[in-house]
């Protein structure tokens, strides 16, 4: 088990470094932005998947992305503190609120938790529109990375996302990650051996919120402009689409789903109302026809090959 994990981590690190190196070479602005988008989407989808480890579908993911984005925006444009602090803060503010949110709401499960996450996202979004200092409905502008970093921003974003994804992977395979899965499978047994199930669930959500927050911070710097409408439950729905299409069983699922759907959606955007139709179909078809996503199809193919070889 340890060996396989080490191998995967090594492969993952190499992949991140390769993509980062590629991004240095690509000079075309559109493609660079596309790569950043894919990276951010992969991180958001992965943070959504992370909460699935305790068996909950966290529709509040969009809220934490937004809190991260607004957090970074506030630190940079209102407090006028440096970029690095803004980015770190984006993760921290999301994590803090995630902790409070989780502490209160993880007492309920399944559909109730899902609906609460949905309601929470809307409440937070509506609250943004009422606060003038962060621009209410129009949002915040002028969120730029420092001049020195700006040309290398894609590479920077990829490295940050890469580190976050590897971190999530490591946690998933650790004893803590196994405890998460144990809680998902049978929280009574975990309770019976003396583990504080509630706080472990809250910890899982907090880590996920931190990752979402960082994604939000990265998003703020690449868009330069953020507004409440960017962080509605629609964002959670996109993340869900990436996750479902890629496959929720393995960590690589959301990454694959994000890359594929972001790539394809650039084609769909030219079609009016395009990306809605596109993501809608993606979710519907995946849920009906390939519930385990791309990862599931690959696993089936491998089983088939194994069967053939044995025969």
């Amino acid at each position, binding site marked *: 088990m340890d060996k396989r994990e080490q191998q995967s981590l090594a492969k993952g690190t190499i992949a991140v470094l390769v993509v980062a190196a590629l991004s240095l070479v690509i000079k075309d602005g559109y493609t660079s932005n596309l790569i950043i988008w894919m990276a951010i989407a992969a991180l958001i989808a992965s943070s959504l998947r992370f909460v699935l480890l305790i068996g909950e579908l966290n529709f509040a993911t969009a809220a934490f992305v937004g809190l991260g984005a607004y957090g970074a925006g506030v630190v940079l444009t209102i407090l006028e503190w440096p970029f690095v602090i803004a980015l770190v803060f984006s993760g921290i503010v999301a994590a803090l609120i995630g902790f409070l949110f989780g502490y209160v709401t993880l007492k309920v499960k399944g559909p109730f938790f899902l609906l609460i996450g949905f309601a929470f996202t809307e409440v937070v979004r509506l609250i943004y529109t009422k606060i003038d200092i962060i621009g209410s409905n129009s949002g915040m502008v002028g969120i730029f990375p420092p001049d020195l970093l700006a040309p290398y921003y894609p590479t920077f974003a990829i490295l940050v996302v890469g580190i976050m994804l590897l971190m999530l992977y490591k946690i998933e395979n650790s*004893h803590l990650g*196994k*405890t998460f*899965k*144990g809680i*998902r*499978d*049978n929280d*009574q*047994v*975990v*309770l*019976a*051996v*003396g*583990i*504080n*199930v509630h706080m472990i669930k809250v910890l899982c959500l907090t880590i996920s919120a931190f990752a979402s927050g960082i994604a939000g911070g990265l998003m703020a710097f690449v868009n330069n402009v953020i507004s409440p409408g960017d962080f509605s439950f629609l964002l959670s729905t996109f993340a869900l689409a990436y996750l479902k299409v890629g496959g929720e069983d393995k960590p690589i699922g959301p990454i694959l789903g994000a890359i594929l759907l972001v790539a394809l959606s650039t084609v769909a955007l030219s079609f009016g109302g395009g990306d809605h139709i596109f993501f809608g179909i993606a979710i519907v078809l995946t849920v009906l026809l390939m519930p385990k996503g791309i990862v599931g199809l690959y696993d089936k193919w491998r089983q088939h090959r194994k069967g053939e070889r044995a025969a």
Partner: protein
Amino acid sequence: MSSHQVLLKTEGISRRYGGLMAVSELDMEIRSGEILGLIGPNGAGKSTTFNLISGFVKPTAGKLFIDGKDVTGSNPTQISKLGLVRTFQHGSLMKTLTVHDNILIGAIGAIPPAHSRQREDRVHEAAEMLGLTPFMNEVSGNLPHGVQRLISIAIAYATHPRILCLDEPLTGLNQTEAVNTLNIFRQIRDQLKCSILLVEHNMKAVMQVCERIVVLHHGQLLATGTPTEIRSNQDVVNAYLGAKHAH
């Protein structure tokens, strides 16, 4: 034999559900190092008693003492920390996890984070004790029912409990498996110097392995004693016969 040090004691513990007294004024104790059986006809209150002493259900009256300390109303995590660990009759397993990881959860519950080597050793010890070593990397949900029962016991064992509470552990086991499991109970008790509380329907097994038996009926204590005493207790016989002929 076993000393008479009392590990757990209930005083007048009761649980009411609306109009029904599932358990009523129950006084019982679990002594150090003993294998204690908890039996009674269907509906006698065995499950509720089990849930009461493990903290999964709060009593509506009465008290619970562990090591002389009043722990009435404590939650399962707190009671677990005091050394009482239980299994569940239905589904005591984390089905998508391997046998290794299932038992690991038990070890995680008992051993603090910085000691992962110690946790690993504990997992292997538990697997050995329950004969699960050949299955370590199998996904537990794919294994036969008998093996799954052993896994659930192993998870509890891995916490090195002082009071091991087993909820109908022999259900669905064939004769050979049941005998094998009874032997394991004795080995666990000898190895950990713990007490074992056994809720079981399998009368033969209970009479064979338990040193003392508590009999419940209609939520109340009907009798306590050694297997021989209980077997010849007229009230107990009547209770079971009555239940058999109940319409």
